[in-house]
C-alpha cells in the first residue's frame, strides 16, 4: 500500500466516522434521553407495562382507570426538567399547552390537573392507586415498580 492509497483510505475513514458522528450520535442521545424517564406505579398494580397512549390518556384525565382499577396520576413539579421531558415525550405538549389544556378542563368539567410532587416516587409509593414518573437517576429500587412503556 503506497502513501497515496493510505491517505485516501484515511480520508475515507474520516468521512465515515464524521458521518457516523453526525447521524448515529444524536440518535443514541435521543435513546438515552428516552431512558431518563422511568414510569412507576404503586406495587398494588399487577401490570408490568402500559401503552404510551393509555399513559397519555391517564395523565390528561381522559381515562380514570388502569387495569380495571381507579388510577391517580402523580405529576412532577411544574417547570422541573423531568416534567418538561414528560410533557414533551408522553403528553406531546409544551408546558404552555398543558396549562391551556387544564384551564379548559377546569372550566368545562371542574377537573383539575394531577397533583404535583417534587419526589413523585414517594407519592406513588404512599398512594395505592398512583402512577407517576421520575428520573432514572433518582429512582430507588424497591418501593415502587417500573412500568415498561409500549409505543
Amino acid at each position, binding site marked *: 500500500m503506497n502513501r497515496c492509497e493510505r491517505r485516501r483510505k484515511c480520508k475515507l475513514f474520516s468521512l465515515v466516522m464524521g458521518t457516523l458522528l453526525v447521524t448515529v450520535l444524536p440518535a443514541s442521545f435521543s435513546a438515552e434521553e428516552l431512558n431518563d424517564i422511568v414510569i412507576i406505579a404503586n406495587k398494588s398494580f399487577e401490570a408490568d407495562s402500559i401503552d404510551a*397512549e393509555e399513559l397519555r*390518556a391517564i395523565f390528561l384525565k381522559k*381515562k380514570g382507570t388502569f387495569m380495571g382499577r381507579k388510577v391517580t396520576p402523580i405529576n412532577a413539579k411544574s417547570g422541573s426538567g423531568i416534567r418538561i421531558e414528560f410533557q414533551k415525550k408522553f403528553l406531546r405538549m409544551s408546558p404552555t399547552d398543558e396549562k391551556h389544556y387544564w384551564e*379548559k378542563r377546569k372550566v368545562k368539567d*371542574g377537573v383539575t390537573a394531577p*397533583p404535583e410532587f417534587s419526589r413523585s416516587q414517594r407519592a406513588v409509593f*404512599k398512594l395505592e392507586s398512583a402512577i407517576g414518573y421520575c428520573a432514572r437517576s433518582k429512582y430507588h429500587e424497591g418501593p415502587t415498580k417500573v412500568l415498561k412503556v409500549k409505543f
Partner: protein
Amino acid sequence: MTTMNWKLPSGVSATMRLAIIVFWLAAPTTIAAQEQASEETDEPTVAEKLSAIEGELDQHKTQIKAQQNQLEAQQRQLEGQQQQIDELTEFQEEEALAAVEDNALEDSRLLKLFGFFELQFMKTLVERDSFYHTSVPSNSSFVLSQINLYLASQMTQTLGALVELRFTFWPAGFESEHPFIAHLGNTELSGNEYVRINTEYYDYSENIINKTGGVMIERAQLIYTPLDWFNVIAGYYLTPYGIWNTDHGSPVIIPVLPPYLQRKRMIPLAQTGLQVYGRFYPRYDLFFDYAITVSNGRGPAQEVLDFDENKGVGLRLRLSYEGDRVAIAAGGYGYLGEYSDTHKHVEMWLNSDGSLDSSRRMRFVVDEWENYFEYATAADLLIELFGVRIQSEFIWHYVDYRIPAERSDPDKILSGAPATMPLFQASYLGLGYYVLLAWTLPVKELTGGMRITPYFMLEHTKMDDTLPSYNNDFYCGGVNFKPSPYVTIKTEFVYTVPESELWGGPLKLLNAQLVVSF
C-alpha cells in the same frame, strides 16, 4: 586545628542542612575560638555539638510529625462530624419535605377553589329608538355580569362533588317591563308600567345605601365514578348536548356572544336529576361517550319542582378522535320532556251558618294551566386540524301543546294578531344551526406562547315557525387573544339580520370581553 572535613548524616532534611550550613557560615570565628577554648578547656568538639543539634532537630522533627498526625486525626474527626451534620440536615429537610408532600397528598382530595370572571363592553350601532333596545343596552356599557366560582372536592377515589356558583350584579338595573303606547286611529292604547329592578337597601350598620346582586347555581352535583364506562351524576348538571353548552365558560368559548339556539334554550341548558355517563375506548385516542339523563325536565321551577309525573329523558352519544394535531368529534343528543304549569286552589264546603262542613273533605285542587310535550334533537360536529377549528351545531325542536298558554304581548304584536284579542300559543317547530370557523395562528413560537385566534361565525335560526318575526340570520367576526392561559381578550362585531321588517333593519353590535381565570 581540626579540619571541617565532615559529612552530614543521610536522612537529614534539606531545611536542616541549610540551617546547619548557615550556622556554620555565620559562626566560623566563634567556632575557632571555641575550638581553641575547647582544646584548652577540654570542652565538646564542634562535631559533638553538631551531633547534639542534630539530635535536638530530630526530636523537633518527631514532635512536629506527632503534631501533624494529631492534626490529621482531628481533621478526620471534624470531617466525620461535618458529614454527620450534613446527613442530619439532609434527613431533616427530607422529612420536612415528606411531611409537606404527605399533607399535599391528603390536601389533593380536599376542597379546591377556582373560577373565572368576565368584563364585557357592549356598544349597539342602531338608532336610539330601535326596538332592539328591549333586549340590548341603549348606551355603550361595561358589563360585569358574572363571577363564576367552582368548589370541587374529591372525597374518595370514586366520590367527588362539584358546585359552580355564578355571582352577578344582576338583576339590579334589569328592565322587566316596558310600557307601550299603541296608536289605533285617533285613539291611543297604552298599558304596562315601566319597571326596572332596584336592589338597593339601607345598611343601618354602616349608615349607607348598598346594592345587592344575585347568585345563580350553575351546577351542583355529586359525582360517582367507579368505572370509566359507568359513572353517575346526581344533582343539577349541565345538559350534555352540543359543544357550546359543554364548553360552558367564557374562558373556553371562542366568541363573546352565544348563538341564538343557545340563548333561547331550545334544549334546557341544565337539568335537575340524574345522569349516567361513561366512556369506551376502541383505542386510547378514540373515545365513545354516552350519557343518559333523567330530570324534572322543563318547567316553571324545574330546578326544584316538577309539575307533572313525566320526567324529562335524554340520550347523548359521541364519538371522538383526539390526536396531536387532529381531532374530530361527532355527537348527538335526543331529549323528550313534558312541560307543565299548574295553579292550585283550595276547595271546601260550608254549612248554612258559614262554618266548615266537617263531614266533607277539604280539597287542594290542581288546575292545569299550561302543558306541552317537547321533542328535541341536537347534532354537533367538531373538526380541529393544525390549529383550524370547524365547529357546528344543529338543533331541531318540536313543541306539541296540549294546553296552550296565552301569548305574551310582544309575541302577540309580532305575530300580527289584533292586540286587543287574546291569542294562544300554537304547537310549533323550531330549528337552528351555526357554523364557527376559527384559526389559531401558528405564531406561538414568535409570541412566547400567546394565542391569537381570528374567527367567523354564521347562524340561522327559526325559533318558532308560527312566529316568523323571531327568525334571523346572525353573522359574527372577531379575534380571540390569549396572552396567557389565564387571560382571554375578545373583540367581535355582530351583525344580525331579522326576517321581519318590524325590527327596523339589522342589529349591529360591537362586543369586547376580558375573561380572567383564577
